[in-house]
């Protein structure tokens, strides 16, 4: 769902850029407060995994492909603010280094996949995990549901942006984008739950969201 140049209006891109930049600035503050030396390589390896996994497009119905996003994955591992920064770093490198996603649409892409995908996706995860009683089972249900929703919500945000920009009317863009990404989101949920369960098996201490208390990542080391 990386939006290229030309799809969105300049004023919309300026608005999403401002929101994304402001949210990232606050994210930097949160990460600064909570992260120490230990998190440095973890951030590196999480971002590297997401970049590599995003390259692997899997086929879905109707001659369309989708790929892993990793926004909820990194939120659950590193916390939502760190995840927002990881998504932002990945998107900037993809845009400048690989011509994936337009430079003018960078703010919108960070908004859709970082602000909506990572922060919004994590919010859903948090609410579901806590309302289902914080068991191992509820953790995975919340993880699957929120990672699926992160894709559908991000794609819906993109559809709204396309409509606001006058590129495609909402009643056309929204069902099309949400429909295709409801399928892609299934892949997201499968990859996210598989990857997190593998990490939980080997290093449960590295999945900060699985903490018994489930505090909103004020936990440091």
């Amino acid at each position, binding site marked *: *769902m*990386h*939006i*290229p*140049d*030309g*799809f969105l209006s300049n004023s919309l891109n300026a608005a999403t850029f401002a929101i994304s930049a402001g949210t990232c600035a606050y994210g930097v503050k949160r*990460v*600064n407060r909570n*992260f*120490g*030396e*230990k*998190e*440095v*390589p*973890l*951030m*590196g*390896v*999480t*971002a*590297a995994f*997401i*970049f*590599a*996994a995003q*390259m*692997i*497009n899997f*086929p879905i119905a109707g001659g*369309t*492909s*989708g*790929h892993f996003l990793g926004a909820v994955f990194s939120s659950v591992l590193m916390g939502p603010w760190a995840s927002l*920064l*990881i998504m932002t*770093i990945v998107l900037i*490198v993809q*845009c*400048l*280094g*690989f*011509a*994936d996603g*337009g*430079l003018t649409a960078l703010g919108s892409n960070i908004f859709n996949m970082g602000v909506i995908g990572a922060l919004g996706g994590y919010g859903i995860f948090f609410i579901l995990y806590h309302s289902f009683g914080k068991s191992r089972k509820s953790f995975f249900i919340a993880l699957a549901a929120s990672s699926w929703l992160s894709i559908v919500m991000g*794609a819906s945000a993109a559809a709204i942006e396309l409509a606001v920009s006058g*590129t*495609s009317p909402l009643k056309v*863009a929204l069902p*099309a*984008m949400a429909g*295709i*990404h409801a399928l*892609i989101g299934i892949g997201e949920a499968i990859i996210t739950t598989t990857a997190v369960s593998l990490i939980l098996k080997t*290093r449960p*201490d*590295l999945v900060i969201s699985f903490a018994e208390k489930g505090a909103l990542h004020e936990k440091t*080391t």
Partner: protein
Amino acid sequence: MKRRLDGFIWIGLGVSLLLALFLSPFASSSPDGLEKVAETKGFSEKGDWKVWKYAPFSEYTVPWIKNEKVSTALSGLIGTFAIFFIAMGITKLIKRSTA
């Protein structure tokens, strides 16, 4: 309990590099969700406009390597390494100072 991280980091980086090197060349080349919607809803030509023309690995290829699969694999390898170090560098800058 303070467990060492080195093993996890090496394995995680190793898995990522293997994905980039061996799976990315065989990824589906079908249009992604947004590209497909743009095609079917008739606005894909709007995306032909490109502002940033200096991407060294445009469309996940290394320009001087002609073999498509090798080109994709190498661009993925470079990108994965680059992201690893960039993300570490940025985190090093913004983490709390251990005073």
